[in-house]
């Protein structure tokens, strides 16, 4: 699997434009637009987490929604059952996701291609099945009544859609910054090298398994953050969030955006979510169109929208 050209400068430029657009639409939009912006920001965080392990380490996960679920359910349980403030629940959820992934990663990160995909799919489905029947986690009904964090002591009421959207955008910027930093650091470059040629990284003395396990764990922590924000946005969590199709949609987003570009994941999440929403308002067979569009991207534009932007930039200087 190829990633897009490594280009930190373009990555930052696209990120700045995207965040600016999100901020502008958030300021001038109505209630629904602001909710929608928050959704895009959260989906983007999830897409960044998937993009990171796919492009840095070559780990394509069809079970990553499990970590979205772990973040979401942890936040719900910690804040409702244990009375931990939602803001701190978010941090604890990230740590829980990170640690679970470190344990799982120890056993699975060295699996190649299809085996890694299928094992993550199996793990994700096992988790989904457990969540669906677990009384503690509300079974198929899920858990309602999840509160948003209270930041009134610094003058922010996160129950305001405008403020919560900014809060989500803030976390998106943090996630982007964190992953962009790691991508450029020796660990990230080694992970990129592992995707390209694992045996050569071993031959030069690289700690292949450790690098991949760390990446898997970091990615899971970020997916858990997205899950935590998701339940705070909606106020409830249902098992549907942990279904493998959610991971599949995440992969579609990063392919559309351009694998390995970080900001391409945000672009892909934004475009796919907007198209999904707009099309579903117009026609009932919108999934057919999405599927067809995805096939076109894979056939003719493997470096996604990132590649398109790169070509346009080259053409017009």
């Amino acid at each position, binding site marked *: 699997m190829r990633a897009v050209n490594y280009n930190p400068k373009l990555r930052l430029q696209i990120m700045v434009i995207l965040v600016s657009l999100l901020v502008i639409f958030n300021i001038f939009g109505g209630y629904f637009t602001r909710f929608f912006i928050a959704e895009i920001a959260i989906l983007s965080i999830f897409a960044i987490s998937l993009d990171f392990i796919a492009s840095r380490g070559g780990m394509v996960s069809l079970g990553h929604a499990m970590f979205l679920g772990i973040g979401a359910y942890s936040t719900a349980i910690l804040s409702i059952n244990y009375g931990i403030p939602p803001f701190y629940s978010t941090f604890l959820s990230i740590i829980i996701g990170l640690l679970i992934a470190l344990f799982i990663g120890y056993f699975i990160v060295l699996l190649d291609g299809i085996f890694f995909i299928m094992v993550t799919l199996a793990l994700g489905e096992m988790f989904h099945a457990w969540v669906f029947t677990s009384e503690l986690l509300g079974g198929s009904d899920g858990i309602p009544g999840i509160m948003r964090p209270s930041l009134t002591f610094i003058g922010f009421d996160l129950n305001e859609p405008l403020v919560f959207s900014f809060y989500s955008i803030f976390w998106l910027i943090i996630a982007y910054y964190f992953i962009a930093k790691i991508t*450029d650091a*020796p660990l990230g470059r080694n992970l990129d090298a592992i995707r390209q040629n694992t045996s*050569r990284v*071993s031959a030069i003395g690289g700690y292949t398994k450790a690098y991949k396990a760390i990446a898997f764990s970091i990615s899971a922590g970020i997916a858990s953050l997205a899950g935590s924000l998701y339940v705070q946005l909606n106020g409830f969590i249902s098992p549907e969030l942990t279904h493998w199709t959610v991971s599949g949609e995440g992969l579609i987003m990063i392919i559309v955006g351009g694998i390995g570009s970080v900001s391409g994941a945000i672009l892909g999440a934004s475009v796919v979510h907007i198209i999904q929403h707009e099309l579903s308002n117009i026609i009932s067979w919108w999934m057919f169109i999405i599927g067809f569009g995805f096939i076109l991207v894979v056939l003719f534009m493997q470096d996604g929208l990132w590649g398109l932007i790169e070509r346009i930039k080259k053409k017009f200087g």
Partner: protein
Amino acid sequence: MKLEINNISKSYGSVNVLENINILSDKKECIGIIGPNGAGKSTLFKIISGIIKQDNGLVEFNNKNINNYSVEQRSRLGISQSFQKNSLFLEMSVKESLMLASSHKYKISFNLFKPLITNNFIIKNAIKIAKDIGLEDYLEVKSEFLAYGLQRQLELGIAIASSPKLLLLDEPTAGMSPAETKDIIKLIKKLSKDYSIIIVEHDMEVIYNLANNIYVLDRGKLVFEGSPSAVKKSKLVQKIYLGI
């Protein structure tokens, strides 16, 4: 540097690929391992580098039993290798490939936040190696766009970037034109001043040009050991290679 290979044997099913091979290298030298196709050269190379494990025998490096060491662990001990088929990071530039290859030596590979390109000592090291292997004009070129001969040079560069104690070269001239072969021989000769080298090769001329000591394998057995001139004169070697 001391490498000792004691009574190494390896078989696949009923086929004995290697039988009681003994090799000792305890000084800076260039050892050649030759033999016709199926002699067991590549298997021996893979056993020394840790890619596969022998059935019997012992591999010792600097008096340490490394039988159970993986490729990664052997590399960290100072055993580096280049592959018969180019094994590069095709989407990376020459400079970045060399920087990455030395990031383990400088113990910065777990660094999460400082960009690799801001490590000046690693950049300097990469540029020095690029000069050593004749790729200083291609530093920013992606590996996939290099000509085959230049890719072979980069293959060597990646192997030496971690300043190994022992360099294992598997058919370094494989697939090269006569002119490219000449260049790579020159390069390996230059490297042999700084590194202990073991070359596995089927091209006798390459080995005669480079090795101080040659081990000749035939059907899994070590049949001759000696200097290039002794090997040249050996009737046994001529028989193995030329069938006369």
